């Protein structure tokens, strides 16, 4: 099984798209080596805009490019990009700008650099904007598909990517359909819903919880959330667990909670992730364990509830 950081998949596919579609342009704010937009910059220098360390100007400029028919990808770390919320809110969201925001360095998985470099509130912020599609793919194939979707889709998209390598979980790009969670394991009593880097944690945890016949779901689209799949899960399960490398406030857990509550789910919901606190330095697997959503911690938390 291969493994790759989703930012690497992005860099490669956006370069491919650059060759296929002359409308694709890319902007970066002095992080092109880290976001991997540098691959596009090298191949298509005339369609790459180095904006310097000035994200708000980058976002507004991307909006202007989109108004004239280009499809701009605006790249930075997720925290720095979504930190310019007011510019995104008006120049992109309210303006219905066809801008693709690419936020890398998702969550605690960012690792040793610590909290200030971690996108831990980005899903929450982007989910709050009407019309914004919010994507958080878990591996190479689905990231490639998500980037291709973003180009085809008219309207703003937020794409969340990881610094750390993630194992290949999907065999085909066609597994990805925007707004449709992917069932990796069909189950019975409980459901483990991951997004991005936590999908592989959920899969591993499912092995330790095999006696409970867990569903395992890759919820790559946070907005619009897949209400139909959640209804299926709520009809089947007495415990639904969401797992995210993001604050549990406003991200996957919140999106799932809203949908389940509206559909009358009578079981229990457990939201694993960063529990409304800030992050810190460490290795990704150490942090996932400390913050309670490594595969082992998922297993122990679920067993505790079900005993």
């Amino acid at each position, binding site marked *: 099984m291969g493994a790759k950081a989703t930012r690497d998949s992005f860099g490669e596919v956006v370069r491919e798209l650059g060759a296929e579609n002359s409308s694709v*342009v890319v902007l970066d704010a002095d992080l092109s080596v880290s976001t991997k937009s540098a691959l596009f910059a090298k191949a298509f220098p*005339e*369609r790459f*805009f180095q*904006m*310097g360390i*000035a994200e*708000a*100007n980058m*976002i*507004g*400029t*991307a*909006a*202007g*490019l*989109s*108004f*004239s*028919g*280009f499809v*701009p990808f605006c790249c930075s770390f997720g925290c720095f990009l979504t930190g310019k919320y*007011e*510019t995104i*809110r*008006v*120049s992109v969201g*309210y*303006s*219905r700008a066809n801008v693709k925001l690419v936020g890398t360095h998702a969550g605690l998985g960012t690792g040793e650099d610590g909290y200030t470099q971690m996108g831990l509130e980005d899903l929450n912020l982007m989910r709050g904007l009407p019309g914004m599609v919010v994507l958080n793919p878990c591996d190479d194939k689905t990231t490639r598909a998500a980037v291709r979707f973003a180009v085809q889709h008219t309207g703003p998209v937020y794409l969340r990517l990881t610094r750390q390598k993630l194992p290949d979980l999907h065999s085909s790009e066609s597994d990805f359909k925007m707004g449709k969670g992917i069932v990796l394991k069909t189950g019975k009593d409980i459901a483990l819903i991951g997004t991005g880097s936590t999908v592989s944690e959920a899969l591993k945890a499912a092995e330790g919880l095999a006696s409970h016949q867990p569903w395992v779901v890759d919820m790559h689209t946070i907005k619009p959330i897949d209400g139909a799949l959640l209804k299926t899960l709520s009809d089947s399960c007495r415990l639904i667990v969401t797992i995210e490398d993001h604050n549990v406030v406003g991200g996957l857990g919140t999106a799932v909670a809203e949908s389940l509550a509206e559909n009358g789910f009578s079981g229990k919901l457990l939201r694993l992730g960063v529990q409304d606190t800030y992050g810190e330095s460490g290795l990704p697997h150490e942090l996932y364990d400390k913050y309670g959503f490594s595969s082992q911690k998922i297993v122990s938390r679920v067993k505790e509830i079900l005993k």
Partner: protein
Amino acid sequence: MSDLAPLRKSATELAALALECRRDILVMLEKAQSGHPGGSLSAIDLITTLFFHEMRMNPQDALWADRDRFVLSKGHGVPALYAVLAKRGAIESSVLGTLRKINSQLQGHPDRVLLPFVEASTGSLGQGLSIAQGIALALKLQKKNSRVFCLMGDGETQEGQVWETAMSAPKFKLNNLVAIVDCNNGQIDGHVKDVMDLEPVVEKWKAFRWAVQEIDGHSFPAIISALEKARAEIERPTLIIARTTKGKGVSFMENQIGWHGVAPNPDELQKALGDLGRSGK
């Protein structure tokens, strides 16, 4: 396509048009009973000159590919833009009466989705120049010779994002970008120099490598001449510091901070229209 060329109206003609637009602005605001007269009246001579002298546009086709673009970054001055668009035949004059009313295309601040002649949705200050830069970059990529004009308020340039664009537009050699700062010296909380002094503003923009001009923003010959000079730039973006008077043309509004965001009542409207050489009805 010659009918879509810039109208090149003379200074005398522009003065007459701007006077009519001033009246329309005040009538609109009185009807809306909210809005921003001060900054609309300071900007109207600049906007009138852009639409009636300088810019290529097709009043029948907001999205005509070869049009010049106007981004009103100081979105609160939008009554001035609506008045000029109506005068230019781009929108119906009758729609002006719907300003700020529910279900109107004429939102309190410009909305590009509801009104296609609006190039950018603004009102959150400091964002328009970035958008204008993006449009200018796009036009260069498309090898079009259309140009982009962006009007900011002086108080607006206190926003940091403006200076990010001040830094980047010269790097991209956007000689097709003309930014104008409507320096009316006023903002909501007081005089600009007291709230957050911008001077020396000419030197600041020069230091950022723009082609800077400083003009009287109510002198039509000066505005025409500045725009003509901007056309001749081969590499640099142009920044025009337009010295203006807040509330220009209405005696009791001129230089009065209190008229930044307050609409006239019916009596005040009549008095204002009297100042502008005509009774209201």
